[in-house]
Structures are given as C-alpha cells and as structure tokens.
C-alpha cells in the first residue's frame, strides 16, 4: 500500500463467530466512516481467521470485533495469540457487545477478554463516539 492511501487509518470490523447480529457493527461502520476511517466491513457470522486475513490484506491499524450472542468466550479464544502469529501483534484489537452468557461483574468480564489479547473491551451500549475517541488516541491521531 502506498504512503498517500496509508494516511487514512484502516480498521477491520465485523461480528465474530456464528453471531448474526449485524446492526451494532453496521452502525459503528457508518460512524467510523464519518470520522474519516477506511472501514473493511466483514458483516456478520465471521470466523476469527477472516478478521486476521482481512487485517493482513488491508494493512489495518485496528481490528474491531462485535459479539452480541453470548458466545464470545469461545469465539475469541486466543485471538491475540492468533494475531501475533500472523504478524499482527502491533494491530489494536477492540471487542464490544454482550459478551457472556452468565451474568458476571463487568471487571471480571473485561479481564477475561483482555487475557485473550484485546486492548480494549466495551460493555453493552457503549456509544460509538467513546470507542472512536479511544481509537484515535491509541493510533496517535489526536
């Protein structure tokens, strides 16, 4: 990818695993594009490997993963390690949605997914501008 197009930050976005909930990532896509990001939108029902392939192909700066159906613990197993293996250790990894099937305290949930390699983990109904502000800060775009 050449330098001029590289100036626009690139994010890979989608809903992981067998999860069909597409509305959250669709809304985030619109907000990210409005905020000047190039979005590689994978839609819903996306295997972890497809996020990684897309991130590699697009030289993405961040991977944004959505999960609404409560099975994120299985779908996101070793996500960070898989990225590392694919040479994407430097890429920021965010996760948000309804992440667990058993109600747990939020800090516990956050810990589980941080241990799976996510840089930031968001609780249900986080506003898009909160995540976008974090992303800009993490990518040094402020």
């Amino acid at each position, binding site marked *: 990818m050449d330098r001029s197009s590289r100036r626009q930050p690139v994010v890979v976005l989608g809903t992981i695993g067998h999860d069909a909930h597409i509305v959250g990532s*669709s809304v985030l896509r619109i907000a990210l594009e409005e905020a000047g990001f190039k979005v590689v939108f994978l839609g819903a029902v996306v295997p972890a490997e497809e996020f990684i392939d897309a991130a590699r192909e697009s030289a993405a700066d961040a991977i944004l993963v959505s999960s609404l159906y*409560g*099975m994120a613990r299985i779908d996101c197993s070793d996500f960070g390690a898989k990225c590392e293996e694919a040479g994407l250790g430097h890429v920021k990894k965010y996760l948000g949605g309804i992440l667990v*099937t*058993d*109600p747990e305290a939020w800090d516990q949930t956050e810990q589980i997914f941080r241990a799976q390699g996510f840089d930031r983990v968001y609780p249900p109904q986080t506003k898009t501008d909160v995540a976008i502000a974090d992303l800009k800060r993490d990518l040094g775009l402020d």
Partner: protein
Amino acid sequence: MTMLAGIPLRTAQWDWDYFLHQRREVLSLWPSGSELQGDDAIAAGVAYHKAQPWWKYASLRNKRAQQEQRIQLVPQVGHALTEQTIAHMQCSEDLGPDRWYVLTDTYTRKAEYAKAQDAVERSRRDGFSYLNGYPLAAHGVSGARAVNECTRAAVGTDNNDEDARLPWEIALAAGWTWGTIKSIEELIQHSRDFPVDRNIHNQQYIDRLAAHYTEQGVPILRRASANLPGWDSLGFKVTVSLLEVLLSAAQGVKFIDLSIGIGMNLVQDVAAIQALRALAREYLDKLGFGDVEIHSWTYFFLGDWPLQRGQMVGQLALNATISALAGCSGMYIKSPDEATTTPTGEGFREAMEICGQVVRLVAGQRLPESPELATERAMIECEVRAVVAKIMELGNGDIAVGACRGFETGVIDTMFSPYRFLKGKVKVVRDANGALRYLDPGLTPIPREVAEYHRECISRREAKEGTQAGVRWIVREATWASRSLRDEVAERSY
C-alpha cells in the same frame, strides 16, 4: 456458497417414502440420532406422547385459554447443560408458564454438533454455560425428556437453525409438542450464506414429521415465525409469517400460531396482527386448508432494550399491553436481563410477574376500531397481497419456488440483514409516532398507494423535527428504545 443448492423444490406434501429416505441420512448426522433409527422409533415416540396429559400440548392449551379468555405467557430458556436448563425452568414453575420456549445454542442451530458437544464438556468441567442455548443433539432423547418432565408447561423448540431436522426428531421423540417454522425468517435473521432452497427443504422435513405425529393423533403445533428485527416493516413481517403458514400447511400441519414481532407502535402492531389473522384464514381456505387451526401470538420487540431496570420494565409492560389489546392468544416474553446477558431463570421469573400483572389487568379489553386502525390495516393488507401475488407469479403458482425467486429478485428484502444474498435495498425509518415506514422500498413490489402513504407519514416527522429522513435517522433509531432518559434530558435546552 451460492444462493441455491439446486434442490428440486415444490410446496406439495412430501411422499412418506421420500421422507423416510431423507430420515436415514438425518439420523446419522450425530450419534444421538442412532437410537431413533428404525420403523418402531416413531411409534415409540407417539406412544410416549399419548401417555401425556392434555396440558403438555401447546395446541390444546390454545383452545382452553381461548375458552377462558386467558392470555398465555411463554418465557425462554436454554443453557449448555440439562441441569442448568432445568434449574432455570424451575425458577418460574409456580407462576404457571403455558409453554417453555427452549432455544438451541448457535452451534446446534448450524448442525455443528461436534463443537456443541465440546462446549458441553467444557461447561461441565468449568461449571459455567459456554453455550447460548440447549444443545438438543448433544443431550439426545434422555436429556430432552428430563427437560420435558420437569414442568407442567408445553415444551417446544426454537428453530433458529439452518438444519434443525435432527433436533426436531429428538424433541418430538422426547414429548415436546411444538416449535417454530423458519423457512424464510431464518435466512434473513441469522444466516450468512445458507442456500434458500436447502433451508426451505429442511423445514419441509420438519413440517412433514410434525404432520405425521398429528396424523397419529398427537396434535403438534408449529409457530409461523416473523419475530424479525424490530426495525423491519410490519407489512414485511406479515408477508413472512403468511408464507411460513402456507408452506407448513402444505405439508399437513394442522395447528399453527401466527407470530409477529412487535414494532412498538400500538396501532400499527394491532393492525398487523389483525391483518395477518384475516389474510392467513383467507389464503388457507382458498388453498384448501380450511381445517388448519390458527391463533394470533406476538414475540416481544427484537431490537434494543434499555439497560436501566425501570425503563426495561416499562418496555416489557408496553409489549405485553400491545399483545393483550390486539386480542392475542399469547406472547413470547423477554427478560429484564435482555440488554446485558443471555437471560437468566431469575430474570424470566421477574418478567413473568411483570407481564402476568399487565395481562391480568388488560385481559378482555381490545383496542377499539378507529379510522387510524382501519387505514393501517388496509395498508398492510394491500402490501402483503401484492408481495404474495408476485411471489406466486415468480413460482408459477408454487410458493416455495416463488420464495426462492423472491430472494433472487429483491421481492423479499429488508435492511441490516446478515444474509449476503438479500439485495439490502430497503430502508425503513420511524415516523413521528414511532410507526415503521418505508423510506425506500427497494425492489419490493409495494403498491404505489402504500409507498405514498408511508412517505406522507415520514414527511410529517421531517416537518416536526426540521430534518431530512436519511441514514442519520436509521443510525439514531438503532438506539431508539434503549437510550437512557438521563441522556434525553441532557439534550434539552432548558
């Protein structure tokens, strides 16, 4: 995957021999199917059913509830382990749920039984449910019978599946008495690229099996589902539910619930429920299925639910009120946990109390007829007739064939679907009263008068708010119901 798998489809009832041929393959999908092999297995299932009391049957509960003018409540359940699932159900047993809606986990829904089995073992080891539903194939008939026997309610299964044939075999053999039809809805709601014809064919298998049990004197009920997301138009939901009814009746199913996902505009929801009831009766009679018994039901809003407990309770109460005022036989309720986790047993107990109280107070009352209700109903009927006529035309009179062509041509379409083969050209927004309107009907054959009526309703909101309808409205409406009241107050200028 391609949109069509090349399966020769027709709507007419399957020959029993064709069914049996398919069945051998279905039962070999996972070891739990092997105990159902052989000619005697269905007979054994029927015998188990015949020893059950009448109240285990959703179809018979419908009749009794109607006589008593009582509105039925159905909570939901589904965890990785049988004992977790039973514990959840026991939380509400004394509140007398009429049915339990048992959802299977997403792996089972996709026929990935090895992954489901794996997650069951992990769940057992860690004392935690790694699954978002009950893995029917993993637990087999013995597990499903334990679930059935822990409650007086009629137990049934969801069909959020691309291939639910084996889970249905197990459920029926275990004495479960009802479940959902998702020939069309499943693809729009949960699928990425499963072929349309294969999905319809899988559903026909289940319908044919259910009809066979009914022929043997076991009144199995199928629920024609158009839960669909909360932003879909009500006319579209009525079309989907009606197609499910007609496909199912063609296989010989005799007891069908007409289920509509609530959109949360009182007049429009009631109009849709009334329109579906009238159209389903009319089409069933016209196509020679006059003996099919139908009942109106709702499924609570499938969209955003608030985090704040008080707001959540308010939203549950509104959904229950709409269902009751529409004269429904019953409703599929949600839990106050909806916004944060896979719902719990305790959450559903609270939901049973919230909705039970509303229903007790509202029962017997109906939304009175009014010009607004009549207009809304007429618009929905006009839309549905046009779309169904187009589907029939595309299929040369065959609904199953026409439905496949409907997906291909954009006649069946909506927005925000994970299904890659939908055109995705339709745009729906809310009007000033919160009713759902086509901003753009895409390639769907919506009659001009309906499109103009929707446009007029949208214009009134544009005038009221001083903004133009567009993508910004759609984005904002993703949190239409769940925005916290505090945020709204913060936006006021005073």
